[in-house]
């Protein structure tokens, strides 16, 4: 386990590239994807996507899983954790949930 600051630096460096960041966000939002599926949406060539995935993997942000000829990539849960202190993280979580609760209460009136 890297010291928090070093780990954060590595994450920032890795995600500073917009294409790489878009690939990572897609994996976070949509779950596991093949290189092919990622390439179809990335707007760059498959070798370029593979290279980005390699960098993301080295930074610990994604993991790969081989199945037959396909390699599936997924975001590593907790990879961004060094960036955020848990208290502000949980506070943000609950503030969001309370927003949704407020919306729900309004709907229950109708």
């Amino acid at each position, binding site marked *: 386990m890297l010291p928090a600051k070093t780990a954060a630096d590595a994450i920032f460096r890795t995600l500073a590239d917009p294409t790489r960041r878009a690939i990572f966000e897609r994996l976070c939002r949509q779950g596991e994807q093949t290189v092919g599926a990622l390439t179809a949406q990335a707007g760059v060539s498959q070798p370029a996507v593979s290279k980005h995935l390699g960098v993301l993997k080295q930074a610990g942000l994604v993991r790969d899983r081989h199945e037959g000829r396909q390699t599936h990539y997924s975001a590593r*849960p907790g990879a961004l*954790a*060094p960036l955020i202190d*848990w208290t502000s*993280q949980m506070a943000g979580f*609950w503030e969001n949930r309370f927003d949704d*609760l407020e919306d729900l209460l309004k709907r*229950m009136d109708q």
Partner: protein
Amino acid sequence: MTETRAVVIEREFAHPPEKLWRALTQPHLIEEWLMKNDFAPQVGHRFNLRGDWGGVLDCEVLEIEPPRTLAYTWNFANDDPAYALQSVVTFTLTPTPAGTHLRMEQEGFRPDQKQAFGGAHAGWKKFFEKLDAVLAQA
């Protein structure tokens, strides 16, 4: 070291406590604002909260006093102790002239635990909205 830390979120809602209580204790309503669940309003009832991110929280009802207090465990099992989480979430409802004051306290983290990982994943969506701004400052 058994010292714990807590997160407290408070908000006033323009709705009566009884209505808030339903939102906190009826599974189909809990799902609308928190997570999918098999909650039942009964002390000792064990249930799961299932997040959109695929994580599953292990919960047990500890205290239930309608429409005032609801407490349950909020545990996330993980082989890596840095990610495992054992906590208790307590909702306290207080009637006000305009509606209800809701206080949520989550406590039970270890002080060396920087990542409150279990529930925090659901906060990623918001985090991502901020990520560009954060990176711009890096």
